[in-house]
């Protein structure tokens, strides 16, 4: 049968990765159009409920390889290769992330398959999948088709949105995987988020970004209160992270994270290009700055020239009042 197999990554608490769930939803959508099945592969210690729960996102079957360790590429290549060969899947799909890149690349070599990386969109054409990927620093896109099977598709980070499109639980199928000799050479010592996991600004729909205009570290309280009132998170510029006012995990820009929330509220941020490249795709940008010539006003939808120390507390109060009433 010619289905699509997705590798679903989970953390030590059993929570599945957002990009993996997105890939399952995408596979289910495509499988519907192809008239075939979307399935997922999980490794390590995953509960029956956890594995079956992937059915919500559209996986009909979930293959579980309990003896294969999570987080290392080579053992997972063994597991993916076995399930694809034995079950005859036509495509393997990976959500974004470094591990997906590594497994996808290894799988490609193992199965002598065709691969497309950094894919932003997949569609069905003449009963086959076509992967779309940006090239030349995203100045053009190319369509990639597959002449043989399986076709390996590795998505760009956040390319696929998770949606609960499935009906009911997935069938859980336990598989035994014999690891290759080289797959046992590395051992997982510890897993964790490298750069502070406390603030997940990439997922927030509303962000309040604080810059040097706040004056001192203690004044980030203003941004935090505003974010709380709005139900959003707090982000920061390189300069204030550099000064130690806020953790690196909240840094936006060329050397930080790239975000695209529905609302970006820039407080005391001048808007240097290094910051702009990290947030310019926000749907709505609102800036408060005392300098009317600050570059941020050139790409804001709404600009307020004034003293943020006076404006922000009042704005927070007004939002609280509106939400309360």
């Amino acid at each position, binding site marked *: 049968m010619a289905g699509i197999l997705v590798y679903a990554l989970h953390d030590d608490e059993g929570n599945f990765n957002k990009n993996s769930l997105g890939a399952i939803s995408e596979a289910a959508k495509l499988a519907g159009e192809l008239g075939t099945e979307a399935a997922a592969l999980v490794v390590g210690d995953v509960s029956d409920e956890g594995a079956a729960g992937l059915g919500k996102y559209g996986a009909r079957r979930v293959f579980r390889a309990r003896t294969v360790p999570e987080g290392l590429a080579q053992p997972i290549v063994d597991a993916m290769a076995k399930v694809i060969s034995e079950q005859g899947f036509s495509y393997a799909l990976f959500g974004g992330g470094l591990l997906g890149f590594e497994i996808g690349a290894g799988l490609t070599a193992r199965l002598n398959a065709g691969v497309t990386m950094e894919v932003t969109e997949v569609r069905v054409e003449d009963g086959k999948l076509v992967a779309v990927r940006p090239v030349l620093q995203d100045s053009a896109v190319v369509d990639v088709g597959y002449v043989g099977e399986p076709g390996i598709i590795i998505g760009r980070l956040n390319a696929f949105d998770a949606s609960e499109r499935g009906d009911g639980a997935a069938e859980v199928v336990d598989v035994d995987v014999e690891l290759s000799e080289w797959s046992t050479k590395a051992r997982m010592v510890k897993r964790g988020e490298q750069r502070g996991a406390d603030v997940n600004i990439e997922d927030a729909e509303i962000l309040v970004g604080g810059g040097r205009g706040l004056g001192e570290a203690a004044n980030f309280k203003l941004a935090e209160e505003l974010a709380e009132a709005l139900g959003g998170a707090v982000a920061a510029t*390189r300069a204030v992270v*550099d000064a130690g006012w806020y953790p690196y995990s909240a840094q936006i820009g060329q*050397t930080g994270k790239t975000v695209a929330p529905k609302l970006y509220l820039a407080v005391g941020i001048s808007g*240097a290009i290094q910051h702009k490249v990290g947030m310019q795709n926000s749907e709505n940008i609102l800036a408060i700055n005392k300098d009317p010539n600050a*570059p941020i006003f050139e790409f804001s939808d709404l600009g307020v020239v004034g003293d943020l120390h006076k404006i922000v507390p009042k704005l927070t109060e007004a939002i609280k009042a509106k939400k309360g009433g």
Partner: protein
Amino acid sequence: MGVAPAQFPPPVAPAEEFVTGITDSEDERIEVGVAIVGAGPAGLACAIRIMQLLEGEPELSERLGEVPVAVIEKGKVAGAHLLSGATMRPSGMRALFPDLDPSEWPVYQRVEKDAVYLLTPRLALPLKPPPPSFRNHGNYVTSIARLGRFLGERAEEAGVYLLTETAAAKLLVEDRIVRGVRSGDKGRGRDGEELANFEPGSDVVAKATVLAEGTQGHLTGAAIEYFGLEGLQPQRWELGVKEVWEVPKPLDRVIHTMGWPLRKRARYNEFGGSFIYPMGEDKVSIGFVAGLDYTDATFSVHDTLQLFKEHPFVRRILDGGTRVAWGAKTIPSGGFWALPRKLAVPGMVICGDAAGMCNVAELKGIHYAMHAGIYAAEAIVAALKQDSVNFDAYDARVRDSLICEDLYRWRNVRQAFSRGFFFGGAIASLATITRGHLPPGRWKQHEDALEEMEIGKAGSRYPKPDGKYTFDKLSSVFASGNATRDDAPNHIRIQRHVPREVAQTWVSMCPAQVYEIPEEQAASGAPEVDVHVTPSNCVQCGAITAKGGRLTPPEGGDGPLYQEV
């Protein structure tokens, strides 16, 4: 009275910190035949020439091992850290590639027309005929960043091992014989701690070491101090900031300007000028160069270039265009008297801008670098055949070449400009007419960092950047391709608490906004202030080394990624 930055020397001792013995065991070290530091025109010409010579020397080839020539380059690719005007004299290309047609050179066009203008705030007065030193007829407009890539490819094709993203951090010396270099560590955090991706440097042990590091060479500085190679006069520098513009109408000539926006009064000591070169049909290269012996702490070459672009004469050329690139670099301008006393010591030679092989009067240096690289290659191959590390033949060859002939002719001209524009112009004419016989003697020049700085009014003249035609420093750093990680260790050595005059000098001088005075201290008027350093902005132009600090190489791969400057 002003304050000289030299009174606040950086916490650094190059000959002790950056010169070391071999520490890696025999298994760990990397053994190469010739180690060349710097993938610029000097280093790559040397590498290519060695490979050409080795074709006829199978026995020596064998002895040099698996990697006969390695070029160590801190930039992401060959050319990533190269910046120049540039109009190039073609003799270096001809000497290195005698069979290559100029149509295959990495150049834009041959110069057919020259023009030199004296600028007033509103007018551009053509100097006819142009001063001889500015005549470029028959030279080629090139981008040295492109030239670096071209030479890098040729070198790799010839079998050279090009080690990019690798800094040469220390010079390996044993018994006063240079034995190679040690590469820099990678993956250290802000306080020097080892991060998850930490990789220690390695000893690159070589039979010959070529320092072709370019302006403000890190190991060159250490070697000059360690071996006592200081020239008869101290080296000094100019700082150049340039942009590349896409323009709707092609430029038909090579342009140089003098005068405005520099101020004529002798006490400001502002010397320099601009260049505007055509790059094919749709691009121009525009830059401003000024001597780092100026005395107004608020003077900024980057902002002088922005002001210069507002002149109606320049506006007409750039009108309707967009800026596509930006960069900055220092230029050694000490000339003949500042050349190291010796260009070779046992096991090592110094080539190109690292040695100060630059002719500021004629704005030329690329061909000297290439010739020097070729001479070094020939001397090294001849010596290694005899199993010798004595490369003195290189020193003699340079002193007897067009490099020293040219530098000697202009030996006293740059100094004259420190006494004002018109006096300098008169001396330059004298040198031209007498083919360098006059003025005689050895005119004094002193270190840029010894100039006493005062907080003047240069800063108040600069335009407020509009982001379209004139640009601030940060957006310019972005245009240089620099995306250095923020938690890299600081590679800039300066004193952090200094008189306001010194701090302001660094703040204004640096084209990449590396130095800042905290806002409250800037406003308070305190006589001494703290200097905040943002090393990730640094484009490694080297100005800080000239003006009282010391640049060291950051982690390999950091800094700008110049494409076409």
